[in-house]
């Protein structure tokens, strides 16, 4: 009985910790300075072309980052896992660097490196997918490695080759379908990091490319009500995105493993 109550208290504390800021934000966005609740701040937000523009920019950037991350991280991690355990240890170690290096340091390094010569890309959004991919690398690499360890990737690859498949065919037809849920989960983490990234975007573009976090900052400064509404909307969209992706991933997993008869 006592344990049951402890368990309930822990759950309530957890939910309070998670939900209080969100509830406060929602209340502020519909209440504002007035006494009557209103959704006018949301209406203003939706019709504001700057909001939809920054939302589209952020979504586009996040999508580019996910595609880039899958493309540049998956093959080397897979190859190192199968054939070069020493290289894999290096990849794992390097992948943790963004954990310990603050985003502002990374941004300054980008500014320093890409501010002159042929690679004069500071002030443009072209660097952002690369920078975001670097930020999300620790998460993506770990999720992918977990999946590789779970699937006995080496035996499956060897089995495919012994049956007559080339390395590329075995990777495309056997490994990729099995890594899909890892790629989705890792991609999801990178997507959320990209959508919410502020520091690097601000420092490398100088505010010339409007993304959701940058617009949120401006909106909060100019119109706190609209800023709150935007934060709420962003949260709702993010939760919907996460639920949809998880549903998609688990559905795939069910199909891969099959229901036990």
């Amino acid at each position, binding site marked *: 009985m006592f344990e049951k109550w402890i368990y309930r208290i822990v759950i309530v504390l957890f939910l309070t910790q998670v939900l209080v800021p969100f509830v406060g934000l929602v209340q502020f966005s519909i209440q504002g300075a007035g006494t009557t609740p209103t959704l006018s701040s949301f209406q203003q937000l939706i019709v504001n072309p700057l909001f939809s523009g920054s939302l589209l920019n952020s979504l586009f950037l996040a999508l580019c980052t996910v595609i880039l991350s899958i493309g540049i991280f998956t093959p080397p991690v897979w190859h190192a896992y199968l054939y070069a355990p020493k290289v894999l240890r290096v990849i794992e170690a390097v992948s943790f660097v963004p954990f310990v290096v603050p985003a502002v340091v990374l941004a300054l390094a980008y500014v320093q490196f890409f501010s002159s010569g042929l690679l004069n890309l500071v002030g443009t959004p072209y660097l952002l997918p690369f920078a975001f991919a670097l930020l999300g690398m620790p998460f993506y690499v770990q999720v992918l490695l977990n999946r590789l360890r779970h699937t006995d990737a080496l*035996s499956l690859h060897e089995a495919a*080759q012994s049956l007559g498949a080339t390395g590329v065919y075995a990777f495309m037809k056997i490994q990729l379908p099995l890594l899909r849920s890892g790629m989705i989960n890792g991609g999801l983490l990178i997507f959320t990091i990209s959508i919410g990234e502020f520091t690097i975007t601000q420092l490398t573009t100088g505010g010339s490319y409007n993304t959701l976090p940058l617009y949120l900052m401006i909106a909060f400064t100019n119109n706190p009500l609209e800023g709150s509404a935007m934060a709420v909307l962003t949260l709702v969209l993010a939760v919907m995105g996460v639920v949809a992706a998880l549903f998609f991933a688990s559905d795939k997993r069910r199909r891969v493993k099959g229901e036990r008869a």
Partner: protein
Amino acid sequence: MLTVEHLEKRFRDHVAVRDFSIRLEPGEFIALLGPSGSGKTTVLRMIAGLLTPSAGTVYIGERNVTNVRPKDRQIGVVFQSYALFPHLTAGENIAFALRLRRVKKNEIRDRVNELLGLMQLPHREHYYPAQMSGGERQRVALARALAFRPPLLLLDEPLSALDAKVRDSLRELLKDVQRQTGVTTLMVTHDQEEALSLADRVIVMQTGEIEQTGTPKEVYHSPATAFVSTFIGVSSAIFVTRADDGIHDVQWCGYSFHYPLHANQRRELAAGGTKLYVRPEAIRLLAHPVTNTEPQGVVVFSMFLGNSTRVRVRMTDDTLLTVDVPSGKLEYTEGDQIYIQIDDPRS
């Protein structure tokens, strides 16, 4: 069919396989038997092309495949973990190699059905590996490896992950399938029972080298080394000399008897004497001597095993013998004075 010459594999300073040579005739079933770390799986992986040899050559027929990629070797491999593709059904797994070879759809369907029938899995075509039992998965793995009619089949510990009952039934199925398809087979196993019951020839390996090659009976009854005698079953080592009666093979403590000898042992015997490894069931205990030459000993240990009782006897020359006495025969207890006879296992 398969010829392996002086194969060697080094991992830095460690020699995993040293000077390994074998020749498999078409349709032959050979078991590579040895404990963990004996190098047997390394040999199999080098033959399959999954590991590059440090030295030596591998021929399939007349073709040197030492540097040929696994996909081009045309060898069926059954992995210890089955390695079935989890996102494909049993039928799709079996058809995988056929699709790669662009076999016509109706031919693929026929071959899949034929193999499912052969493996006694007629209703499992649309099941995913996760929906099948270990034994069923193993049979699908075997069917998949046989689907493209490879001239050579490699089995890596094919039954080790299964429980005893399933293992027994699959052992019979494996033998049946090998006989029906006639595929030349090399099986790696650490299970002596599996090797002796399935193979035409057994190769016993230890620390990367071949200890003995022979038929299951030769390897069992005439172990060439102490390692083979202890790794395959139980045996008692006795030092024998050539029998001086001109009738029997060997003599021990004045007692002459027939016993199959390995070539090395024959050479050693001619030079003076050799160690003989006698199986427990080849030794008979007697309460009284028959010819007055039978060596005498004392029972020092006795343990009931169900269908037999294992007895340890200390002989007058201090040799310790292990003897299996069939249940229902005279029972012996510790301290009993007995005499022993050694039967020729060939008779």
